């Protein structure tokens, strides 16, 4: 035992000598060590829990920031008017619902398209019917059949979100992700708007099929 003491004392002496020569680095290291210790003590180094979105019922209104949004149903059709013609191996997945404007200023229609996502849509296709990793829907006003230019405060619109898929069959139900936006200044233009679409909740919707 006594033989181990001399090397340990020597090591401590070397550390002290190094710390005396590099006082600033030693102080910074001590601060980092203390902060790490406090963080660990408060649970900051524990593995993060996987994000789970709250589930909401079909037809229940959800506040997303710029809108109150409702998801009513999901239908798969082989065609949907002249803008969405029948094409071999292509199906159109139509999420139906409604949005009501909550923002004091009109919200661009593009934010309506971003307010919904289908994370489990198999074989998503883009507008040119090419495979894509990021399926983005067309949001259409049910009454007008065109994309909304803007959504004003207190106004409600029945909306459909149209996706394209190359999958022959879909599950009996599918999760529809509702996304919120945050109101802030644009970093470049300094105009205040709604940005950063973020998953808010999931609505599991039964898939209805119409074959023609």
């Amino acid at each position, binding site marked *: 035992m006594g033989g181990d003491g001399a090397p340990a004392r020597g090591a401590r002496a070397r550390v002290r000598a190094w710390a005396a020569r590099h006082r600033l680095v030693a102080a910074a290291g001590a601060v980092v060590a203390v902060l790490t210790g406090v963080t660990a003590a408060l649970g900051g180094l524990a593995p993060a829990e996987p994000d789970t979105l709250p589930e909401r019922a079909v037809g229940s209104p959800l506040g997303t920031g710029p809108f109150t949004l409702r998801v009513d149903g999901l239908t798969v059709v082989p065609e949907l008017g002249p803008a969405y013609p029948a094409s071999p191996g292509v199906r159109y997945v139509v999420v139906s619902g409604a949005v009501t404007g909550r923002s004091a200023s*009109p919200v661009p229609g593009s934010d309506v398209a971003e307010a919904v996502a289908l994370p489990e849509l198999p074989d998503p296709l883009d507008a040119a019917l090419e495979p894509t990793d990021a399926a983005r829907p067309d949001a259409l006003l049910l009454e*007008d059949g065109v994309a909304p*230019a*803007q*959504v*004003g405060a*207190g*106004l409600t*619109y029945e909306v459909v979100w149209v996706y394209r898929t190359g999958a022959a069959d879909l599950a009996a139900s599918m999760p529809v992700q509702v996304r919120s936006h945050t109101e802030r200044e644009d970093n470049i233009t300094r105009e205040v708007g709604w940005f950063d679409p973020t998953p808010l909740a999931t609505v599991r919707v039964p898939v209805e099929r119409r074959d023609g």
Partner: protein
Amino acid sequence: MRRAWLTRLTATAVVLAGLLLGRLITTGLSTESVLEDPIEHRAAIGEPVQLRENTVRVFEAARAPTVVEQGLERGSSGRWVVLTYEVSAPRVTAAVAQVSITDGSGRLWRSGSRLGGSCPAVPPGLLLTCTAAVEVPEDLRADAVARLAPALDERADAVVVVPLARDGALPAVQERIEVAAPRFVSAPVEEAPGG
């Protein structure tokens, strides 16, 4: 030793004074948004307003749950406010580029949300009559005003502000309103502002 501390204290005081000055500049002076506020010209329905380049007169405001444009009906979960106005420009081609409605709750609605109708620019010597339909909710307040702006960006520009209510009440709700296409007519020759 004492002199070194004095130098450090002076440096710290200079840095703090600089930070304080910066804080005063950013919070104590007029903000850009105040400087950029539009210059509002208030007028009643039927009263002409002379702006920098054009003269604008709103001569009718009406409300309905449905409007008809080129044979197409457009319903609403709220109401359409339909404004009919005329524009003339004595010297240069000018336009009303944006029509919007605000009320005391701080909410704002713009025309062009669902209808295609826009008002073209009017060349000198002509009078242009336009109709703008703005979709608003049913709970639009009686203090609502229409804003007619010569440019999409209203900042630091003149804007016509017209209260919609007469005798404290918004226009009566009609069953439906036809949104007319823009119509040019000859304008009486006006004397150009300042000339």
